């Protein structure tokens, strides 16, 4: 009955964010491949647009004009995650669990890849993602909305 998600082959949503930063003095290129967005639930229960706005505002207000510094950026990652969770929770969407993950990193010419994949029900579960950068740092923030019975 309820445990269909495990019996059926996984229906993953994959978000891959590649940051091929070769040289700090040249233009940093962000590649954001096809996000493979999951449809929101039947009738669009999870308010994707509102969540995206929350993500964008939380990241920008924490990091715009900031330079990378380890202590403050560690705090910023935590603040972003907490603020986004609180605001998405305040939207009051019934029967949804929320996971927020925020990464804040230094632009140092390194290359990195962030990927996630989910085992869930694509009819009801979904995610939003926001990528930010300035001259000194970058941030990636993801919100996952997971329906529970």
């Amino acid at each position, binding site marked *: 009955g*309820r445990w269909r998600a495990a019996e059926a082959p996984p229906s993953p949503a994959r978000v891959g964010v*590649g940051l091929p930063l070769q040289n700090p003095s040249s233009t940093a290129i962000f590649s954001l491949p096809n996000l493979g967005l999951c449809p929101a639930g039947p009738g669009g229960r999870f308010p994707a647009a509102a969540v995206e706005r929350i993500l964008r505002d939380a990241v920008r207000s924490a990091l715009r004009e900031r330079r990378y510094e*380890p202590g403050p950026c560690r705090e910023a990652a935590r603040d972003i995650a907490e603020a986004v969770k609180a605001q998405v929770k305040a939207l009051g969407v019934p029967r949804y669990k929320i996971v927020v993950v*925020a990464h804040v990193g230094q632009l140092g010419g390194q290359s*990195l890849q962030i990927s996630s994949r989910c085992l869930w029900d694509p009819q009801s579960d979904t995610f939003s993602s926001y990528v930010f950068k300035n001259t000194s740092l970058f941030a990636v923030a993801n919100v996952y909305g997971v329906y529970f*019975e």
Partner: protein
Amino acid sequence: MEEFQTGEEASFLVDEVSSIIKEAIEGAIGGNAYQHSKVNQWTTSVVEQTLSQLTKLGKPFKYIVTCVIMQKNGAGLHTASSCFWDNSSDGTCTVRWENKTMYCIVSAFGLAL
């Protein structure tokens, strides 16, 4: 249909998930040096292997798995997460792994149905 008992079977066991993640990382990138051309394939492999092993546990959970692989060059990276869930059944596990040339950070979140 199987009945899931309350108690151990229905909760997220950090040690169990941590072993799964460690094996997935070792299997995908253990013994390798960082290569930009491979990193996409590596993150995919780590995430898919982790998810498939979690599925085999046969627990009534939905899962989210995130993987970061970053070249070591002195630059800093911070990750934080915040969740709204059921404390008695849901959980998360993060494994940090590194070798001489790269960092790999994998987080798994399990949400009970």
